[in-house]
C-alpha cells in the first residue's frame, strides 16, 4: 500500500491528456448557440448588454425583431449598453461620440456630429445571428471571421423525443418535451455564478453530488427518495451521442441495470430517506446544456445552461419546459412554477448547486486544481463530458482583450467592491431606455 495516499486511479496524467482542449477552454467554446435573454426581458425598443465567452454583445429589439451586435464601439471601445441610445429603428448609436451602426449589418452608417466623415460606410462592428423561440432569445456567438453556414439551433439543444425514444427508451415518461416542440410553455430564471463555467457544467450531471440535496425542503416535503449517490456499473452506463447534424454530448442511463443507486453507508450509518421514488435522467450537450428529464415533476423537463461570461463567472440558466395543450393545463403549471418550483427547486434546491460551484472556484482558479483534483469512480461521467467537449466543440474561445474580466482586479472592480456595486453595473444588468426628450 505504499504511496496509496497519492494514487490517482480514475484520472491519471494519461487520461487528462485526452481532454486537453477542454482544459484550454477557460473562456468557453465559441461558434455555438447560447441563451442570451428571455423574450420578456427585451421589450420593444429596449437594449441590453451581456457578455458571452468574453465577447460583449448588445441586444436590441426593433420592430419586434431582436438584433445582436458587438457591444463595443469601434471608436473608443465603450459599451453601447452602458447608456443606451437609439435614434431610429434601424440603428444603434454610441452615446459617447455618436457613431451609429446599422442593426441589420453592423455597418457604420453615420456619425451624429460628423455626417461627412470618411470612415462612414467603410467599417463596422460584428453582427451575430439571433433566434427567438419559446420565449427565449438565442445568439450564435462566433468568431469574427466565421464564414460558414450557421448550424441550426437544434444542434446546440438537447436531443428530442419521440425521435430518440427507440435509442434511449424511458417507459416512465414518454416523449420528454423540447423547447422546439409546439405548445410548450417555458418558464425559468437566470443569474450569475462566481465560478468557471466548466465547474458549473460538471456539477450539473455529477452523479455523486446528490448528498448536497439530501436536506433540501422540496425533497423533505415531497418525501422524494433521492439516493445518496448513483454509481455507474458498466460501460453501458453512459451513452455518447455523436452526430454531425444534431446535438452532441452524452446521456446517463440512470435507473437501468447500468447504474446502482447508493441507498446507505453502513460505516457512517446514514441512509437515503423518503418514500416516494423519484425517477429522472440527466444528459449533457455542447456547448454546455444539461437536460434533466422528468424533473421536477412528471412530464416536465429542466434545462440548464452555464454560459461563460468571463473565465470566472458564468450565467446560470434554469428553465422548465412543459407541453401545455390547454389553457387550463398552462394556468396550473404557471401556478406551480411561481409558487412551488421557482422558490423551492430553481432557487432552494439549485441554490445548493450554485454554492457548490462557487466553493470549487478557489481550487481551480489558478489552473492547479485541474492537475491536483482526485477524481473517483463516481466521476466517470465528468471524464466522459470532458472528452466529448474536447471532440465536439466548434472552437475554443480565446482569452479576450479589452473587455470586462480580461484583466483581474481593475480599479473599477475595487471601487465596485467598496461601494457594494459599481454604479454603471446597473445598466449592464438591465439595460435602460434612452429618453430622447
Amino acid at each position, binding site marked *: 500500500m505504499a504511496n496509496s495516499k497519492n494514487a490517482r486511479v480514475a484520472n491519471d496524467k494519461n487520461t487528462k*491528456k*485526452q481532454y486537453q*482542449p477542454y482544459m484550454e477552454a477557460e473562456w468557453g467554446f465559441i*461558434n455555438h448557440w447560447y441563451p442570451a435573454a428571455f423574450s420578456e426581458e427585451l421589450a420593444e425598443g429596449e437594449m441590453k448588454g451581456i457578455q458571452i465567452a468574453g465577447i460583449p454583445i448588445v441586444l436590441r429589439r426593433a420592430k419586434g425583431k431582436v438584433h445582436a451586435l458587438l457591444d463595443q464601439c469601434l471608436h473608443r471601445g465603450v459599451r453601447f449598453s452602458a447608456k443606451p441610445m437609439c435614434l431610429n429603428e434601424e440603428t444603434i448609436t454610441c452615446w459617447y461620440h455618436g457613431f451609429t451602426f446599422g442593426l441589420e449589418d453592423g455597418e457604420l452608417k453615420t456619425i451624429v456630429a460628423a455626417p461627412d466623415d470618411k470612415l462612414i460606410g467603410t467599417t463596422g462592428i460584428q453582427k451575430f445571428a439571433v433566434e427567438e423561440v419559446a420565449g427565449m432569445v438565442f445568439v450564435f456567438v462566433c468568431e469574427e471571421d466565421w*464564414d*460558414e453556414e450557421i448550424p441550426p439551433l437544434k444542434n446546440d439543444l438537447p436531443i428530442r423525443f419521440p425521435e430518440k425514444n427507440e435509442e434511449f427508451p424511458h417507459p416512465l415518461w414518454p416523449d420528454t418535451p423540447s423547447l422546439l416542440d409546439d405548445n410548450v410553455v417555458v418558464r425559468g430564471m437566470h443569474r450569475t455564478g462566481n465560478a468557471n463555467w466548466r465547474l458549473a457544467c460538471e456539477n450539473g450531471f455529477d452523479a455523486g453530488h446528490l448528498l448536497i440535496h439530501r436536506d433540501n425542503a422540496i425533497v423533505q416535503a415531497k418525501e422524494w427518495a433521492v439516493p445518496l449517490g448513483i454509481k455507474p456499473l458498466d460501460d453501458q452506463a453512459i451513452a455518447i451521442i455523436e452526430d454531425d447534424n444534431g446535438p452532441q454530448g452524452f446521456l446517463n442511463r440512470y435507473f437501468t441495470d447500468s447504474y446502482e443507486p447508493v441507498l446507505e453507508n453502513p460505516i457512517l450509518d446514514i441512509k437515503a430517506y423518503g418514500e416516494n421514488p423519484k425517477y429522472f435522467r440527466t444528459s449533457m450537450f455542447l456547448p454546455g446544456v444539461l437536460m434533466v428529464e422528468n424533473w421536477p415533476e412528471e412530464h416536465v423537463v429542466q434545462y440548464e445552461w452555464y454560459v461563460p461570461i468571463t473565465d470566472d463567472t458564468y450565467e446560470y440558466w434554469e428553465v422548465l419546459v412543459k407541453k401545455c395543450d390547454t389553457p387550463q393545463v398552462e394556468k396550473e403549471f404557471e401556478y406551480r412554477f411561481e409558487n412551488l418550483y421557482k422558490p423551492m427547486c430553481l432557487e432552494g434546491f439549485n441554490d445548493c448547486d450554485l454554492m457548490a460551484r462557487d466553493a470549487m472556484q478557489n481550487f481551480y482558479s489558478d489552473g492547479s486544481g485541474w492537475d491536483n483534483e482526485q477524481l473517483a469512480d463516481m466521476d466517470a461521467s465528468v471524464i466522459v463530458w470532458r472528452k466529448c467537449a*474536447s*471532440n465536439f466543440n466548434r*472552437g475554443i474561445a480565446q482569452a479576450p482583450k479589452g473587455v470586462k474580466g480580461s484583466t483581474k482586479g481593475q480599479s473599477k472592480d475595487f471601487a465596485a467592491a467598496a461601494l457594494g456595486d459599481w454604479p454603471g453595473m446597473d445598466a449592464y444588468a438591465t439595460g435602460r431606455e434612452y429618453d430622447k426628450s
Partner: protein
Amino acid sequence: MSSAEAVAVEALTSKVTFRFNDGVEYEALSNEGESLLDVARGNEVPVIHQCLTGSCASCICKVDTGEVSMETERLMSLLPSEAKEGFRLTCTAYADTDCVVDLDYPSTFSEDHEASQSVITINEFEWVNHNTVRIVADLADDAEMESFEAGQYVQLKVPGTEEWRSYSMSSTVRDLPEVTFYIRVLEDGVMSNYLRDRAAVGDELEIDGPYGVFYLREEKVPQIMIAGGTGLAPMMSMVDTLRLGNFRRKPVILAFGCSFEKDLFAQEDLELREGWMRNLDVRTCVSRPEGEWGGHNCRAQFSITQDDITDPETIAYLCGPPAMNESARDHLESLGVKGENIHVELFETV
C-alpha cells in the same frame, strides 16, 4: 578618379534589393567578396540568420532578378531543387550583378523574434521508441523568450561540452515557459551520448533562440505537412497552434513517415488531435513494414495524391531528411502546389 577607374569600381559593386513579404524593400551596395548576408548586416537590413556557415538555412532568400552565385565548397543545406528554383542562402551567396532577392517573412520578423539566451531544466525525460526521447523542460524564470512561431527551433548546449545542437519545439507558445522536444538518439554524437548515458530529470541546459524562418503561415488555405522521423516535432507545434486558433474549416493533412514501425512515436497524441480537429487527417506511413502493418505502406510524401490538392494556394511544410524534402518538393509541385508555398526545414542527420 579616371573614368576607367570608375568603370572598374562599378563592375565590382552591385546593387542588391532585399524585398520582404510585407512589401518593405531595402537597397544596399555589394562590394566584391561580400556575401549577401554581409551586405545585409552592414546596412542594417533585417535578414534572419544564425549559423553564418551555410548549415542552418535560416538566411534563405529567393532570387527574383539578377545573377547570384553560390559558394559550393562550403557545407550547404540548400536542396539542389531549391537552388535550381533560385533559392540561395545569403551567407554563402554573392551578387554578380544588380539583383532583387525576396525574403519570405515580414521585415519586422527579426525584431519580433529576437533570440535570447537562458537555461532550461528537464522536467520529464521519456523514451518514446527505441531511439527517440521526449524532453519536457521549463525555461528559467528570468528567460526573455516570451514567444516563438510554431515551427521555429532553438539551440541547446550539450551539458559538459561546448557543443550546440538545434531542435524544433513540438510545444506551442501557449505552453511557455514549458518547452517540449523530440530528439532522435544516434549511435554516436555528443547530444546522443549525453541523452543515452547521462541525461536525467533536473538537468539544466543552456538554450539560445528562437531561430528559423520555417514557421506556420496562418493563412486560411488547406495545409499539408510532411514529416520524416523527429521532423514531426515542428509539425506538432503547428497542428496545436492551428487547433488553438480554431483553424477548422480547411483541411490539414499531416503525413508522418518512418522506415520501420518501431521508429514511430507520438501515435496517441496524433490520434487524439484527429478526434479534436475534424479537418485533420493524419497519415502514418511506414516504408519498410516488417510483418503486418495497417497504415500507409509508402514514404510519407507519396501518401499525398492529386485528390488532396483542392486549392491552388495550398501551403505545404516539409521537415525530414534532405532526400525526403527533395522528393516531397518534387512530388508536391508535380501535383500542382506552387513552389513558393512549399516551406522546407533542414533536418540534419549527421
